[in-house]
């Protein structure tokens, strides 16, 4: 396993995380530009809304992969996890803004949707849980919060499940794609339950 992990760890040792923020800004900017110039098909608002949501889910899943990769494959990408998490948050903010401003448009209907529609309620709760995580994704908060920081950041597990359920519920009929995402997320959470045998139990 180390034969596989070592080269990756060596290669990434010198790669900083900050370029991820720049790279991460490219897809949404490109998507918006494609929408403005009429290159997203006949229903561009839905394409933008769904694409931002889906990319956000990918980033969430990527961030959930970091610790199992370190534990089970010895690949250490921990330095990129904050960037993945924050990018996920920004993408979901974008997803939400597209829904608010370009799709629903009406303030009264937005509030009605949030309280009346289970899939939107669930999506909004998932988003709300991300806010404390995004706000505390900095070194100062880690130092300040100490042990509590790790506990707070376990909220991401709930966010991931809520995000996947939101995806399943918004489709007409029971569809395979969102179920696969929920399956992947549940698997990534389940591996965290594997007892750590290397730890001395005293």
């Amino acid at each position: 396993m180390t034969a596989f992990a070592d080269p990756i760890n060596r290669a990434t040792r010198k790669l900083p995380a900050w370029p991820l923020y720049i790279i991460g800004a490219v897809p949404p900017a490109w998507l918006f530009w494609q929408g403005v110039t009429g290159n997203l098909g006949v229903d561009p608002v839905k394409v933008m809304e769904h694409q931002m949501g889906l990319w956000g889910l990918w980033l969430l899943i990527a961030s959930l992969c970091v610790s199992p990769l370190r534990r089970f494959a010895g690949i250490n990408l921990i330095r990129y996890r904050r960037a993945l998490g924050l990018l996920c948050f920004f993408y979901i903010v974008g997803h939400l803004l597209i829904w608010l401003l370009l799709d629903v448009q009406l303030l009264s209907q937005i509030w009605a949707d949030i309280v009346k529609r289970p899939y939107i309620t669930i999506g909004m709760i998932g988003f709300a849980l991300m806010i404390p995580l995004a706000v505390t994704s900095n070194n100062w908060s880690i130092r300040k919060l100490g042990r509590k920081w790790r506990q707070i950041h376990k909220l991401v597990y709930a966010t991931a499940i809520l995000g996947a359920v939101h995806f399943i519920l918004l489709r007409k009929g029971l569809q395979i794609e969102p179920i696969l995402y929920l399956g992947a997320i549940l698997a990534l959470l389940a591996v965290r339950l594997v007892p750590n045998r290397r730890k001395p139990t005293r």
Partner: protein
Amino acid sequence: LAPGLARAQGYSTDETPNSFEEISTYNNYYEFGTGKSDPAENADTLTIDPWTVKVDGLVDKPGDYSLADLTDGMTEEERIYRFRCVEAWSMVIPWRGFELADLLDKVGVQSGAKYVAFETALRPDEMPGVRFPVLDWPYREGLRLDEARHPLTIMATGIYDEPMPKQNGAPIRLVVPWKYGFKSIKSIVRISLVDEMPPTSWNIANPREYGFYSNVNPQVDHPRWSQATERPIGGGIFAKRKETQMFNGYEQDVASLYEGMDLSENF
């Protein structure tokens, strides 16, 4: 005013139709996949010639009709209709077709018949989407006989001057403009006259969300979203939503069909 004249003038909207490209690249036809562009990408495999439609049940002339025999003697005309999807988007579509009533007269509806049931082709070899149990295939729909006989209800065989694209339900489909789009069943292979309300696909899949009638109604929300407004397709990313009209704007023509019915109960 003679009925014929009223027809010619009255049934098309003067709103600007969507482009052929918009109409034929943005489709819900789950037999070819659940994405909006899946049908346009996958439906070319559908064999539409030869095409047979089984007509059965309470009719004088049941049988397996070839498409040519079925449509023989029907008067085709253009009907520009608003089209409102249950997903809250809408288009304006210039259909070409004939009135279902004429077809029903041709096959002879018997007195006991109360409903018309329709079935879409089910071809696992040609339809990649039916591998997944999104719906209980084959796709089925139905109308009450008076709805089916309403002059707005047509069997469509084309869009603009083109034959019906496969992704839009070639070679022959139903169009019921005052109901949500999923009632307008595509690629019909069977028409049955029956005496009881027939099972319909979306109603089977989720009776709480999709009723038998499924008339466009801004006051009756879908459980998961409001039906008060709709997004017109084709307006770009800053397009304004518009208010959904009762019976999709055909209230004058069809409201009498539902007199005395509680429309939030019979949604």
